[in-house]
């Protein structure tokens, strides 16, 4: 009850608290940087990013484009980042598809399917991811030796890895083709999600999006044709040659064990999100669709799924960002993702702070972009007006 009145003003308090907090934070960062600098200098370590152009001198066991020990750090980092992105894309896509299936089983009427879905979720959600990863990796290593490879549909699998039939083109060509396809897809999504913002006639926009996808695919085809050596055959099939496998496209056990682990673990979480999404859709909308004579397939695809998806998306975004971070566990089985490349680089170069900075920046970049794209999608499809999914 005493003291000057401005101390009790709410606005004054809010501003001082904010200012004090920001100032404290800045001081902390400044102090830490200065201390690190002086400590490093006394140990004779130089800071800076010149090392990025030095060659690494060690090997990377998996990369989408060729790497040699003479390649500089920046190339290794880029390849590591691409591996993480590749694994993330596969893992998220797999977890989404499997999660949709599990979620639908859990929200359906068939008791056997519901039980199966529940068992799946309880198992995969409750065991630590690293344990599941070791399990799949052990399974992969327990497969027979190359000469006893298991064959299925042109592919071979053994303890050394999974051998898929492949196109006879260089990795650079594949990268360009994939890039072309992704650019087309990205453009299409951009155009489609822009639809609600600038009230353009939706059908024209759909046509532009379709064109973008087509152009991306045609571009990919052109790259493949140009990159193919006419002297070679078009496809390469894996085949047993003596004691090892010749031809084909090898996927190492570390890679697919991690992909399976991320997919199955992620699917358990996605499955619960999917179930929640379907639960939130009001019965009224589905009854209205049924009363209009829509088939159960159309009720599902035009009403139930779109409404459930809108309820799921905000939670899915969190889950996706989380799953991307979980791919760093690949280091436990030796998959050369971004995290592992960074860890090896630190060992070999001693530039700890710089590499940790790059690691953070890399993951922030991936997860910010992912969240930004999905948030844009979320805003674009969000229900307009105050009414949500409706009740009754």
């Amino acid at each position: 009850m005493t003291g000057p009145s401005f101390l009790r003003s709410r606005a004054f308090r809010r501003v001082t608290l904010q200012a004090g907090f920001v100032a404290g934070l800045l001081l902390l960062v400044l102090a830490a940087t200065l201390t690190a600098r002086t400590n490093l200098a006394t140990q004779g370590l130089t800071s800076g990013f010149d090392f990025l152009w030095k060659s690494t001198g060690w090997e990377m066991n998996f990369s989408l484009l060729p790497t040699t020990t003479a390649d500089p750090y920046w190339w290794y980092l880029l390849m590591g980042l691409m591996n993480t992105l590749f694994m993330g894309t596969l893992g998220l896509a797999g977890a989404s598809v499997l999660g949709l299936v599990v979620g639908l089983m859990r929200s359906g009427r068939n008791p056997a399917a519901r039980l199966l879905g529940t068992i799946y979720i309880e198992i995969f959600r409750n065991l630590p991811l690293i344990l599941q990863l070791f399990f799949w990796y052990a399974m992969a290593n327990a497969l027979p030796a190359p000469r006893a490879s298991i064959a299925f549909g042109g592919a071979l699998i053994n303890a050394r890895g999974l051998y898929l039939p492949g196109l006879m083109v260089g990795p650079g060509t594949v990268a360009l083709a994939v890039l072309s396809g992704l650019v087309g897809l990205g453009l299409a999504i951009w155009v489609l999600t822009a639809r609600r913002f600038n009230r353009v006639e939706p059908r024209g926009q759909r046509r532009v999006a379709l064109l973008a996808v087509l152009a991306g695919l045609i571009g990919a085809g052109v790259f493949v044709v140009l990159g193919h050596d006419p002297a070679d055959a078009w496809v390469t099939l894996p085949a047993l040659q003596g004691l090892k496998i010749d031809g084909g496209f090898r996927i190492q056990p570390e890679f697919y064990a991690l992909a399976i682990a991320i997919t199955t673990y992620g699917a358990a979480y996605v499955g619960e999100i999917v179930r929640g999404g379907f639960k939130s859709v009001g019965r009224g909308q589905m009854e209205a669709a049924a009363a209009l004579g829509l088939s159960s397939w159309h009720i599902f695809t035009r009403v139930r799924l779109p409404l459930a998806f809108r309820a799921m998306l905000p939670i899915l975004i969190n889950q996706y960002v989380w799953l991307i971070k979980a791919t760093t566990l690949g280091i436990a089985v030796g998959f050369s993702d971004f995290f592992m490349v960074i860890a090896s680089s630190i060992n070999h170069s001693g530039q700890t702070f710089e590499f940790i900075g790059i690691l953070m920046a890399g993951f922030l970049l991936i997860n910010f972009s992912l969240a930004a794209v999905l948030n844009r999608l979320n805003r674009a499809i969000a229900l307009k007006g105050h009414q949500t999914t409706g009740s009754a």
Partner: protein
Amino acid sequence: MSAIARTNVMDLTAPAIEITDLNKYYGTFHALRSINLTVSKGEKVVVCGPSGSGKSTMIRCINQLEEHDSGAIRVFGTQLDDNLGSIDEIRREVGMVFQQFNLFPHMTVLENCTLAPMLVRKISRAEAEATAMRYLEKVRIPDQAQKFPGQLSGGQQQRVAIARALCMQPEILLFDEPTSALDPEMIAEVLDVMVTLAQEGMTMVCVTHEMGFARKVADRVIFMDKGEIIEEAPPEEFFGQPKSDRTRLFLSQVLGH
């Protein structure tokens, strides 16, 4: 009226709706007790009765949103049975308007109206949109076609729901308390549309407590209680000389004060 080719084989000379000895249970609860009701083409029937008397259950049996346990339902001579084809056939000819509107909130008003005609009647988008605009004009909201349901008032949403049902060009419209979720000032705009439809000869079965509407357009008023039809009579007779005590009690509650 019908530019759309009818693929089904409904007999338009048979009674629009013919319900005989219909029974429905929820578990052990007997929700509908041997209901008999015939509605001829062009007739307007108003159904009223206390809460829980089975009004919704009865009209939802007509388009099989609820399955019945015994008895027969025929729509223009086509009997509803376990055959899914008969359900599809009947749903194409029977439109429904719900108390909660139940519009598709992720689609514009226009898309709400064109979805079923394009998917079920398989007409082109252009034709479906032309039909939709015609019916949106009829319910007096053509200017809202590009909006989303959540951006409209309750009365506007219910008029969209009526237009959506009309776009399938049904022979029969079922209404389940279409004005009960509306503020008083919006009730009139929905009732106006319903009166227009009635005057144009639409076959209507309407659960409502709007007794003014019943007086004005109903050919017959039906009173239900505890899963039974207690009384049915033309409106003058129904309101003037109700036969049963339960009807009198109900009317005094609805009209009284």
